[in-house]
């Protein structure tokens, strides 16, 4: 799909009335997180990278998001929304075991690391997890579908779309305080909103 908002970058608004201090502070901190600092180990990090790249690809015309780093930090800090289904352990444990299970699944199916699988094989494996059709024994104690529905998808997706690059790519207005919006009608936009181009 043609990138409709190729020329738009929410970060251009960083120093305008659309952003307040608090927002600048939390977005700056988020964008500066790095994968290596999280400390979940190189092997798991490699699995996580491949997983994130399949679930949440980077936008084409915008800077890549540090989604892996965001998620790795979230995992290490065990920072969830608190609730979890009875079948799953807490966030950190769940993710660490889940990453190991994905790796084991790749070994069981293809005899090689998940990180080394091509896109097609990686996706087929992930669809297996999504459907609960798995081979590795790790999944006995960690129901694949629950892991997929309650951890993999919500966690990756929420980290990815909390990065400004993804906001730019979708033409989202981004942070908006103190300045909000004036023109609310259909097909109207304020000068500080993204202009849409392309296939409309």
């Amino acid at each position: 799909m043609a990138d409709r908002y190729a020329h738009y970058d929410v970060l251009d608004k960083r120093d305008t009335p659309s952003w307040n201090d608090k927002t600048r502070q939390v977005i700056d901190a988020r964008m500066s997180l790095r994968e290596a600092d999280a400390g979940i180990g190189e092997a798991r990090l490699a699995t996580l990278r491949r997983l994130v790249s399949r679930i949440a690809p980077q936008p084409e015309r915008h800077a890549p998001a540090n989604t892996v780093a965001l998620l790795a930090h979230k995992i290490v800090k065990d920072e969830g929304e608190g609730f979890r289904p009875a079948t799953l352990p807490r966030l950190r444990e769940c993710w660490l075991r889940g990453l190991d299970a994905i790796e084991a699944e790749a070994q069981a199916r293809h005899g090689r690391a998940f990180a080394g699988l091509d896109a097609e094989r990686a996706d087929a494996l992930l669809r297996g997890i999504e459907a609960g059709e798995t081979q590795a024994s790790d999944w006995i104690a960690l129901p694949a579908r629950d892991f997929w529905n309650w951890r993999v998808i919500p966690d990756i997706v929420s980290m990815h779309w909390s990065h400004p690059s993804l906001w730019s790519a979708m033409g989202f207005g981004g942070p908006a305080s103190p300045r909000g919006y004036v023109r609310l009608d259909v097909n109207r936009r304020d000068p500080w909103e993204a202009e849409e181009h392309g296939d409309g």
Partner: protein
Amino acid sequence: MRGRSLALPLVRILLRIARPASREARAATFFTGGAAVLAGSVLADSATEHYRGSFRNPAMVLPLLSASASLIINGGGGSFSRKTADVVHVAAGAVGLGGLGFHAWNVGRQTGGYRLGNLLYKAPLGAPGALVLTGLLGAIAGALRESRAGAVVPRLVTGRAAGAVVAFGLAGTVAEAGLLHFRGAFHNPAMWLPVSIPPLTALSLARDVARAIPSPATPYLLAMTATLGLAGAAFHAWGVSRNMGGWRNWRQNLLAGPPIPAPPSFTGLAIAGFGALLLLKGRTHG
């Protein structure tokens, strides 16, 4: 810019009134001044409002052009030919009427048609009406000057007709202010002022017109209304500053806050009202 557009005609009026001239001439000056103030208000208001509307329809520049021309003609104090002036006044009336029709059509085709929500938030009917009034006031002034020159002018512009125009204009402006202040739920008691003083003024003037005799109360009410228009602009400026982000967030708040250029239209009409009173007086004394 708006400051100057207001000050110039006011100064001129004061100068003119200070020197003796015919009643018609003095009245004409009031009408010109009123028209100039009104034109200034319309110009600034339609500029902001149509900027909000992103000038999505090319016709949205018309009121800006027309009001600018009216401002120049009326503010220029008779230094233009009668013909040029007439063209400008007629254009103001036409653009205003056109705008009125267009706004009415536009509101009607919104979801829900003429429901209150659309009357409150969509294209306002009062604003183009003010441009029509600008044209009328200017034309009245022109006709008055003509009569001064001794040409054969039908006594069309009687004090009563002129007074009726001003009273009607005041009533319309009150309706507009009332609607918008209702939208703001009259959250500040001062918001009641423009729906209490100007209506009295309009009534008083209408009574004068009906009786063809100016009553002593009318000039006071006109003066209060004129002052109120200026105070209103100041109030609105303060209102803008109270919105989130204050003046630093002016790109939002000038549009989202109360309209600063709107209240002075009361001032413009009140100034013209003095002209009408002069004419009425002339009638009784002469």
